[in-house]
């Protein structure tokens, strides 16, 4: 298996009202192509911070993140943005859909930003698999939480990224919807050969992962 993503010695400190918080304390991890990783840990352990740094949403204080052999943080902001839309998909606990756009536009935006149009067959396949075909013309505010998360998953895979990050993707969903969502995430990752990295505190979900990375006090254990 090829390593698609690795992080070496990542440190990250935040300033908060109660003083400095060491979110990450020299984390070193690597991720293989097509595998499903679950990052677990208690609240405040640094797992979301790690995910954001791995996904290029945040920068570490020190350390190195390598994607397919390239140093992610050597990229300019411009290049980083392009990297994100081409190689990375995100699924968030809050769904983070764009309220002013239809479902169809939401899932196509990463492609549009690249000046591309969605492959109709692939769009059909993804929306069919995620069960959102009937929702394409609706706006996010008209959807339930589960539906919104399925749209978020569709958006994360339509540009065929190598890696999909999911930050507590089921945190706002009930058990049934949560199971369905995770099943869809895993299925789509498997079908499209994507590396799936999920941050969760749900051990049940973590147990279904190929690999579990546990973070405590900003370190992997």
């Amino acid at each position, binding site marked *: 298996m090829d390593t698609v993503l690795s992080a070496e010695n990542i440190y990250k400190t935040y300033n908060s009202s109660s003083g400095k918080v060491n979110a990450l304390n020299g984390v070193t991890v690597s991720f293989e192509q097509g595998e499903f990783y679950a990052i677990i840990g208690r609240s405040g352990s640094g797992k*979301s*911070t790690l995910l*954001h740094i791995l996904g290029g*949403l*945040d920068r570490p204080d020190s350390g190195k993140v390598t994607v397919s052999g390239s140093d992610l943080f050597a990229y300019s*902001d*411009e290049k980083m*943005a*392009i*990297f*994100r*839309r*081409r190689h*990375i998909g*995100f699924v*968030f*606990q*809050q769904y*983070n*859909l*764009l*309220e*002013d*756009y*239809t479902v169809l*536009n939401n899932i196509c*935006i*990463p492609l*549009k*930003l690249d*000046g591309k149009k969605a492959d109709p067959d692939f769009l059909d396949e993804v929306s069919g698999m995620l069960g959102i075909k009937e929702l394409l013309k609706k*706006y996010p505010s008209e959807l339930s939480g589960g539906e919104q998360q399925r749209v978020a998953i569709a*958006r994360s895979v339509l540009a065929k990224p190598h890696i999909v990050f999911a930050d507590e993707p089921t945190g706002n969903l009930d058990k049934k919807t949560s199971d369905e969502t995770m099943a869809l995430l895993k299925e789509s990752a498997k079908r499209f050969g994507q590396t799936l990295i999920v941050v969760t505190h749900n051990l049940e979900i973590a147990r279904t992962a190929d690999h579990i990375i546990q973070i405590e006090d900003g370190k992997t254990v």
Partner: protein
Amino acid sequence: MNSELFSLALQGSRRKIRSSRLIFAVLAISFAFFIITLSVDSSISESSGENALNTYGEWYGAILEGLPEDEQYLSEQAWADRIGTSVNYGEANGFGFGVIDDTFKDIGRLDLKEGRMPRALDEIAVEANVLAELGYRIGTDQEIVINVSVYAEDPLGVNQPSNITFEHIFKVVGVLKSYSKIWPVSLQNLKRPLNGIVMTTATAEAIMSTASLKAKSTPLTDAEGNEYFAEPQQPQTSYFFTAKGDGLDGIIHELSLHFSKTRHTAPLTTQYVINSTPHTEITRQESYSTAYTAVILIITVVSVICIYVVRMQAEARQLAIFRGIGITKRQLGVMLFYETVILAVPAAIVGAALGIFITWLSLRLLIFTDVTAIRINVPMKRLAVASAMWLFGVFIARVCAFAATLRSSLIGKFAFDRKKSKQSRRLRAVMIAALSVILCGSAVYTVGDTAVYLENRNINSHNTDLLITRRDMSYNPREKDFSGVGGVSQKFIDALKSVPGVESSFGSENFRVGLTFDGIDDDRIIKIQDPNPNEAVYYGNNTSVNQVNPPFDGHFVDMIVTDGDVIDLESTGVDMEKFKSGEEVVLGFRVYGDGKIHVGYTKFNDPEVATIDEEETVSDFISSGGSYSIQFVEPSDNVVYTSEIFDTDEISVDVGDEIGVTFYPRRPIDYNDYFMSDCDYSDPIEVKTKVGGIMITDDSLRDLFGGSMVPIESYTVICSKEFIQKNLLDSLDEDEYFDTNNLGFNSYWLPNREFEYLRSFVILDKTNDPYAVEKSISEVLAGSKLKMTDTGEYWRNRYIDYNRRMVFSLTSGGAVAMIAAIILSAILIMEAESLKKNSAVLQALGMSRRQVLLKNAGVSVLRGVLATAAGWAAYLGLSLAIIPKTAEGSSGEKIFVALDLFKSYFGGKGILIAIGITAGCILIISALTYAARRRLLKGNLMQKLRDER
């Protein structure tokens, strides 16, 4: 254009237009007021320009009474466009007569009011004024007799022959628009008057032939006693031209050059004129409109920033998501620009339509006169520049609002952090305060400024337009030939009042009378002028001083005789019945711009009076810091006219006091001796009367009575004609005649002892074209011994000017206030939305609905009071900062100073207006705040508690 980004912006905006009605409304209204400010200014300027061109002609310059080669010179100049000629042959009653060509008629915009131009012998087209002054009805199809005067010249250059004058019968075929006394070509530039009477060349030549024959009837004598004859002067041609191009300044230089080559006598400059009045009017740029549009632009930009910042929580999240999924900053900038265009362009279209409609409506409603026929004009060039700035401003506002967002972290829930939320709240509070101040400040300015112009407009609307006087005032008292005496009777004045378009008509007479008052306090100003100290100086053969006062002791003041309808005498407290019956009079005191009474008196360096130092002269007086003016009397070492300044509360006379008014009757010795340098005086007649009221008046009273025509000095006795009839005329013997005027000017005789006014003034409704009314009045005058002179051009132009300024002030200042109110309202609504949760918490804790309403009412009123106070402070601060520096004691033009403005222009009303504006501002701000906060009680309590904003 990046089509995908545009498509994304478009799709997002479709949804946003629904959710961004507020911004859309702000942008649309902002643009509407942009259009209104620019269009109103442009429309009014263009209308004023057109009005000026119609009044003064569109010719650019003229060579007056030129040489034949001048026409050739003009035709060879690249800058000269059309050249019109006016040939003068002579004059009649102060109007020129002669021939004008079609180009002159066109570039002078000399429309015919009726009829046609002359084509046959003895046909003429005349100005309405000519007919009115000659006592004919204004209209065509009538034969009139005109006393024509042809200028004569002495072929030997020995004598100065009189004009050759004779009567000629003409047929009036057309009435021309008045121009000859209006155009900026005065006798200073022109030896002969402009042609108010236009005829064919054949008619003019026929008059010249008659003049040649007439000249032969009056021989002149040379030094050796030989007889010879004067000859008519050759006609004089003036060339009027329009000019091409923009660089017209050089024309004056080129004309000067031409004159220096072709003329050999000075002064050269008086022989050409530039028609600067209309061209200055046309090219005048309204700097106010630029300031107003700048203010509107600033308010718009700041408001858009504010609205976006307040909406940042929602918008920032969306932008952060975009960035999270890979949009670059450049793409984001482009998308924001597209979004701005997509939102702003339709808003601008809606705003433009709204703006043009409101402009049309405002101008139609506010400028309702024929005189100021308005042309709606949208200045496309200025608008394009302003629109580009507006669009750019809106885009920059949006970018500014999101500059912070672009730097924000992309992690987590993309929630708006507390710090930014606090900044947003602060910004919102600052905006609310700033907009409230702008709203109140602009409301104060707009109401005050508009009211000043309105007041001035209305004052001018009541100024006189026409003067009716006796046409022929010749009489011979020694021969008891009074066929030419008398004035304008009350009956005639009443007849004028019934003419449609006449607002008012009133008689006017002024005397010089003596005034005595037992309660004179030397320390107070009723002491008036020094008594006549020296008859020899006042009166006698010295014509330089003989027009001051009659040769009697007394305090000489002016007297106005009026029927009381045109002056607001009632406010003086006088019983109008007693006034009209002649039982009481009103004492008028004239105040100057500083609100004080300036009392003039004359000092004579006479050894017997010795009122000034022997060595003191005018120069000494000035150098010692005094101010002086010379009235009637030329300054000399012997006579100094000076003044003292008093407050109005220093007047020593009170209502109810008895005063003595003395008339000084006299009889001229020589026939037609208007100046009465030699006359007999009868015994003075003193009349005791009661002061029924005291009037403090400014120049408006003088303006009402024809400006300098009726001298209104520091003191004026205002009485009714019954006062004169009862106290003066009725006391005469049956065969006694009487001169009513002691100044020596405008004397007339009342042999039949029935009072008649020396003159009558007519005030027209200035919203109408005066021609139709003047025509009707001329029909009333026809056959009488009265003539009509149009003196109202100045007042009508002032009326138009003040009307224009009033409309501009109202619309532009109003535009700023309106946009501030609308944006303020929008931000207050947003503020209320953000307060919903807090309010819900208070309600959940037990605050009743009534308590919430009371709390909101309290906050609203407090805000109203604070904002209004700040608005006044801002307005006054700004006013004082830009007040033009004026000399001490001079009134100056304090356009922006509210307090002075209210005090000077409105007097007692000023306080009420200021209170009204203040109350209005408090009410508006309070109402807007309260209306916005009523939303706090709307909606489900639990939903509001869950609100995460």
